[in-house]
């Protein structure tokens, strides 16, 4: 009897890695500039760009929710996959445990983001 071939779960993680890599390559630098430099330092954008009212309205909009979840979750899955596969290069012989930690943290982050997006209301 030929054993049934076990399906690999690699394409799922690779797709999430690729999607996060593409999203962060397209808008990552600009996002960091806006949220981490322009707004805190008062450069270029209006001072109230990230005021509670503005961000709450954005997070309550369905398109805003989708954007926030895509950025946080896909960035996390991208980084988790890349860090997991780089462990070997820095001399850590990564096995199932390391895989659980890397992808597990990305999953926990995704669940927290989804919960927070529901908690802010609609």
């Amino acid at each position, binding site marked *: 009897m030929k054993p049934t071939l076990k399906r690999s779960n690699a394409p799922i993680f690779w797709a999430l890695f690729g999607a996060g890599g593409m999203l962060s390559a397209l808008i990552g630098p600009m996002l960091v500039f806006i949220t981490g430099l322009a707004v805190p330092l008062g450069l270029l954008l209006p001072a109230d760009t990230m005021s509670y009212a*503005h961000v709450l309205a954005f997070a309550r909009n369905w398109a805003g929710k989708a954007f926030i979840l895509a950025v946080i979750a896909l960035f996390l899955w991208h980084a988790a996959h890349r860090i997991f596969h780089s462990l070997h290069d820095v001399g850590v012989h990564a096995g199932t445990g390391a895989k659980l930690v890397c992808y597990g943290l990305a999953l926990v*982050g995704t669940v927290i983001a989804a919960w927070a997006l529901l908690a802010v209301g609609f």
Partner: protein
Amino acid sequence: MSKRRPYVRSMDGWWRRNPYFVEYMIHEGTALFVAAYAGILLAGLVRLAEGEAAWNAWLAALKNPWYVGFHLFALAALAYHSFTWFKIMPRTMPPVIVEGQRLPAWVITGGGLAAAVVASLILLGVVWGMVR
């Protein structure tokens, strides 16, 4: 239990001996900044869900010089990620055949980088338009 102690060549610092691998480790290392930045955004999102005071505290914390310094490094790391992502894209995507010819690597890289510039300007424009 074996008394053999086979010689295992040390791999310490293997990548530092070859500039190609130094570059590889740097572009893989950008993932640490991507993860940390996503973590900061996630913390902000949780603060947002907790209410106005919590959100304002998070927003004020971003003005801390340590956060500003981190974001400067993160900006450099993500820009480098962006550059290398499209630089290796000709090798990570399936070959594109146009009129019987394989699309040259520089077209794919250049197209990707142009798309990143356009997407970034659109993002800045949309943010500007929403809050103005």
